[in-house]
């Protein structure tokens, strides 16, 4: 016996600790001494060292792997096991052992020296049971709703399958129709090519044009110019669209600058940009809006707009461009050429009539035009002129149109089938609406949360938005882009997070984005919204879609 042990005894020594104190059940069998002569020894679990049996749980770290101190805090990064009899055993970090605090996880109080922490396992166990019961109930109710979602998905599956079957049939029919129309057109064209006899009437001439002749006509400067104009128009439209998009993007940037900038910084360059944009876009100054007196500013905006409209008179306005430009570009120029040809055909009686205007003084033109129109219509009535419609050309056009319509319909139907197929695939895709299709029901469901200044709206699988209470459409916080990237598709964890990315760009920051964190609940609802980092939102919520039936757990546990 060492004499200094007396001194050691004065300390609340841990030497009295049970050698298996803090050892998990799976390892208890390893904590037995070997006997070497009169000495009892023990080998570190990693085999690195043999130590005295007395050195186990003596509050001094001997082993590299810390295995000699399962019941103390002497070795860093260890785990301590508390048995929690009457409740469920738990593992805590060794840094929490003997630190003077009673760990919640260790209701038996074994993490501290005897007498420090009371054993609360009975209460804790009861509490735990209660909690588990409540959770079970929630899960039960939730999973019922969830199974209705799954049923919906199955219904949806059936619907899609029927739809696809119908579409397949429809496509068959349409394909036949297209084939038939192609045949007619071919016949007409070959006939036009073969027939060489003199034309029985003027109307037939157009149809009887040989391909060569059509080609020849197409060389007409007017037609060529028309094509160039058309190309130019198409290009302009394309450019126009590009510019509109750019303008919108710039507008979005400036709008977010306007509402997002911090006036406290007194940055004149930013303020100038904001004021400039407000003037350009006819918006009231944001500081006035913040003060809440934007009424007057709105009136000015209205006035400005009307002024703009007045200026545009005579020219197509934006709405008309939007509506009619496409149609204009899609004009069938061959038909137009033929019609034109009939109208102004070579060496015809009307040529003088049609061209006489060139010789008339401007003042007489209006009366001349009305005269010419009546003559022409009279001629046409008598089958002399080429005014009005030609039956044969109309027939040919009709065939062409019918074919193109049929082709178009076929394409639409095919597209529809493709979409339906895709939807069907998505339905039970673990990466889409979940392995059981449980999320399909929520596709496009919009949830919102009012936080005071803003309403946050998440339309599931679509878009998240921030809508200011003060009015305005707000910002896109991003479009649905993925599930939880840190888990694998099919794992329950995978469906607890949704990412919405590439929202409106923040001034001086990233594109807005949302991480939607979901848990099982009986309702589809948003609970909290927090901007964890600039323009990166974390929204929490519940959904029955995550309430997997309780049996799942049991099977899993058994596995």
């Amino acid at each position: 016996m060492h004499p200094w042990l007396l001194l050691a005894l004065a300390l609340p020594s841990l030497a009295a600790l049970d050698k298996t104190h803090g050892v998990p059940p799976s390892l208890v069998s390893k904590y037995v001494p070997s006997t070497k002569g009169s000495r009892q020894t023990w080998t570190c679990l990693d085999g690195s060292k043999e130590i005295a049996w007395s050195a186990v749980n003596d509050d001094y770290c001997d082993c590299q792997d810390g295995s000699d101190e399962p019941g103390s805090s002497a070795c860093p990064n260890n785990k301590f096991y508390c048995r929690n009899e009457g409740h469920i055993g738990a593992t805590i970090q060794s840094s929490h052992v003997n630190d003077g605090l009673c760990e919640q996880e260790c209701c038996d109080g074994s993490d501290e020296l005897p007498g420090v922490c009371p054993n609360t396992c009975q209460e804790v166990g009861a509490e735990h049971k209660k909690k588990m019961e409540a959770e079970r109930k929630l899960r039960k109710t939730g999973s019922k709703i969830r199974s209705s979602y799954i049923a919906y998905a199955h219904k949806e599956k059936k619907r899609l399958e029927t739809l696809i079957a119908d579409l397949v049939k429809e496509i068959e029919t349409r394909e036949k129709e297209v084939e038939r129309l192609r045949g007619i057109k071919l016949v007409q064209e070959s006939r036009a090519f073969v027939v060489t006899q003199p034309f029985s009437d003027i109307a037939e001439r157009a149809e009887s044009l040989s391909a060569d002749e059509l080609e020849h006509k197409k060389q007409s400067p007017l037609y060529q110019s028309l094509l160039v104009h058309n190309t130019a128009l198409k290009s302009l439209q394309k450019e126009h669209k590009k510019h509109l998009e750019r303008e919108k993007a710039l507008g979005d940037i400036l709008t977010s600058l306007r509402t997002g900038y911090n006036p406290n910084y007194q940055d004149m360059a930013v303020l100038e940009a904001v004021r400039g944009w407000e003037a350009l876009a006819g918006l009231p100054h944001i500081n006035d809006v913040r003060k809440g007196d934007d009424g007057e500013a709105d009136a000015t905006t209205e006035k400005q707009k009307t002024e703009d409209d007045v200026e545009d008179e005579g020219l197509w306005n934006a709405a008309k461009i939007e509506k009619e430009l496409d149609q204009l570009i899609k004009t069938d120029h061959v038909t137009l050429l033929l019609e034109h040809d009939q109208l102004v055909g070579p060496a015809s009686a009307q040529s003088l009539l049609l061209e006489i205007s060139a010789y008339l003084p401007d003042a007489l033109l209006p009366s001349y035009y009305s005269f010419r129109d009546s003559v022409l219509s009279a001629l046409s009535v008598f089958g002399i002129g080429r005014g009005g419609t030609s039956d044969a050309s109309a027939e040919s056009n009709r065939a062409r149109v019918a074919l193109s319509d049929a082709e178009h319909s076929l394409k639409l139907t095919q597209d529809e089938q493709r979409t339906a197929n895709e939807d069907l695939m998505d339905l039970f895709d673990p990466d889409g609406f979940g392995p059981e299709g449980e999320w399909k029901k929520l596709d496009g469901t919009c949830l919102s949360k009012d936080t005071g200044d803003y309403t946050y709206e998440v339309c599931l699988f679509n878009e998240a938005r921030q809508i200011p209470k003060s009015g305005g459409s707000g910002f896109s916080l991003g479009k649905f882009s993925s599930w939880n990237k840190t888990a694998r598709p099919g794992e329950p964890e995978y469906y607890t997070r949704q990412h919405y990315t590439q929202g409106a760009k923040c001034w001086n920051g990233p594109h807005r984005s949302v991480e939607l964190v979901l848990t099982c609940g009986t309702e589809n609802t948003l609970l909290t919204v927090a901007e964890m980092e600039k323009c990166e939102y974390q929204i929490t919520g519940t959904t029955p879609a995550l309430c997997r039936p309780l049996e799942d757990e049991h099977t899993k546990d058994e596995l």
Partner: protein
Amino acid sequence: MWSPGTFLLLLLPTVLAFKPSDFKTCSQSGFCRRGRALAERSQELSSWHSPYSIEPPELSPHQPGFTTNVHSSVYPNVKFVLDVIIHEEGIVRVRMDEENGLRKRYNEATQWALIGEPLLSDDVLWTVDSKKAKAVYGSKKDMELVVDFNPLKITLFRGGVEQVVLNGRGLLHMEHFRTKEDSKLAEHIEGEGQSVLQVNSAAWFEGDTQDAFWDETFSTWTDTKPKGPESLSLDITFPNHAHVYGIPQHATNLSLPSTTGPTARYTDPFRLYNADVFEYLADSPTSLYGSIPLMHAHSATSTVAVFNAIASETWIDITHVEKGGVETHWISESGILDVFLLPGPTPADVFTQYAHLTGTAPLPAHWSLGYHQCRWNYVSSDDVRGVQDRFDEDDFPVDVFWLDIEYAEDHKYFMWNKKTFPDPVEMTKDVEAVERKMVIIVDPHLKRSNDYPVYKRASELEVLVKPKSGEGEYEGWCWPGSSSWIDFFHPGSWDFWISLFKTDTIDSQWSWTESTNNVGIWNDMNEPSVFNGPEITMPKDNIHYGGWEHRDVHNINGMLFANHTFQAAEARTDPPRRPFVLTRAFYAGSQRFGAMWTGDNLGTWEHMAVGIKMVLANGVGGMPFAGSDVGGFFGNPEPEMLVRWYVVGAFSPFFRAHAHIDTKRREPYLLEEPYKSLVRDILRLRYSMLPVWYTAFRETSESGVPILRPQYVMFPEDDAGFGIDDQFYVGSSGLLVKPVTEKGVKEVSVYIAEDQVYYDYFTNQPHRPKNRQITLPANLDQIPLLIRGGSIIPTRERPRRSSPLMKHDPFTLRIALDTSGNARGEVYLDDGETYGYGKGDVVWRGFGAESTKRKGKGIGAVRISSVDLAVRTQVGAYDPKNEFARSVGDVRVEKLVVLGLEKKPLSVGLEGGSELEWEFASKDGAGVLVIKDPAVRVVDDWAVVVKLE
């Protein structure tokens, strides 16, 4: 001719957001321009002499000092008075003021900076002749103060060698108060042509233009200067000292470079004018958040210092002259001349002399030496809880979670935003349940809103800063929008401020019942920062209590805020407990009221590096409880940078990570491996060393010697070390660290001033310097940390969640034997939160290792012992069995690691006891002896004997 301003602009990389246009250069500041022009004229005129002279004083040989009249040959009708006093410890105080002037110069700076009136020396012998008065004093009678009468010049000698010279270059100039009419008249006469030029007899000295006398416009702001010119110019020369240090806060080298002359590093003088500088430059003489007008001058044989107690904007030109000395020129906007000469002769003496004037940093709350986790902003109570959970899941120690301004509804400090923080007290208690603390920001600007009880009450009490009219409330723009500022110079604000922090309601006054007595306070923006003010601060013509203009008190303003917050936090409990207050603005004396940090730094390697120099400079300035934001406030540091920065933080007295609202989150648990584990190890290293840090704080709280000690402080006679500012020692512990502050570093060379063995802290490898260098590997997982031979380092090695949870953990002692086989060290412990240490509730142990050597042989035995140091001091009614000592009676020393034994011991045992368990490992002749659990208590005397023969 190019202006200094454009030159500076050219130097600035355009990517930085520092806006030079927001802040004045010397050339944009009227009085600085005048001061520099005065210095230029003095160089151009060969017959330059100071116009100031004094009347020979009447004094008896043993009085401590004298008062006499001063005359200016350029203004014979203006009266000045000079006061020269020698105080205890040989500190010389020189004061000069205008007598019976039109107005009064600000003379209250020392009222706030000093802890009391310095005691007069009773050990002086004056002699007066027709030209000078001379005082001889000091224990060795080697100190001499010589005051020359005409021109006035004051010189401090030690051992016959000039130490400090005031007005040696004739740049002393106290602009007297004048009326605008007089001034106009002078200008008018000037304009009349050459014949009348001689009428302006002051022109050779003051210049012939009245530059910015009566108003001054900068950008869109006009300073009305109702008092006219009142600046103060003073040259201070250190003829025999090649290095000057101090005058924090500047992002520059510790050894201050020249601002004028051929070796100038900068074109502008160093400026002291507390300012909120957005994204400041990492190498610049521009002013920053705090100002301490204390300068050390150092040579291998002497250290002296000057404390120029002035509170107004001050510019300091520094010239390292060829013959080896340093000339400095101090140009201040207002205030009396009030200069203290601190005679040294060693750095430690200067620190203590300064501490006796302005006080020391008190022992901080122990928890505040742990790791602080901050961010602008943790956005909700759940966010705070979530961050805490993540720290615990990953087993990172942390003591403090911080809340920046967004906790406050509409930035009305104290008022919780209940949407995001619905349960502030519960949240705080959840943090405190693991013995952690919260620090919450309270800024000095008050939202001007009558639904804000703090503003409302301050307004009713009329304790808000006034605009230049002297009536009503000054209104400026800050975080909450339209704001007003409490005038802490107003005594009426003091009790009011104290009442706000009470956690229970008293007399139905509003108080912060939604906080706890443990909450620490963060005082930010106290320069003060005013977004729409000139240079982002308050107009200089604003009016404070007593009618003083803001210009007179600007640099003190921030200190008063922290001072009263400290008092308020302390007054929450009875008996009081040590409060924690962090301040951004500071002045001489601020060390008494808590910690400072280096403000809004950038996440760049340059800022990481200069942060160390700034903390060292703050230590020189008497304010040791300092740190810079780990990771940099702005930007997203790459993982490598963040890991290195954590090392810098772990070796700073104040250790906080902070980040701007626009940055990505970067709490250490978010890092990928291996970075995450590296940071965990660094945090744990800091926690294991808390006994070292706390012991160092005890020492500085007494002596004023800084905690981080640069080479010149440790080895004042070693010339080669005077410029070194990228490595430092921690207190007297013997730990020497050189944090890596560059990317991709694999090894570093540590400068060693002595022929001594140093041990690698982590590998125990002994090193002897070669060519004064020790080269250490410094990969990302390695920290260049050495133990100086002869030191004993007490640590607590068990990882815990927070520092209070370590209270009962055992100690490990690293005993690093010096070349003669000896070592010493100490550990100081107390309850860490009360003032019980004042009555002797402490444990203060000295550890020693003494080797017995036999002739011609090596070490025969080493005796390692622990003795009571507290019993030797007369502090309080110390009793070894005091209450605190009893509360830690169970704390063991669990392990002794002896470094430097050349061979395996024969036996190791307790003195008078039996053999202990031990292991000895030797590699390349470097032996490490580990003694297992001697089962001794830290509170007891004990000795362990290692026998080698």
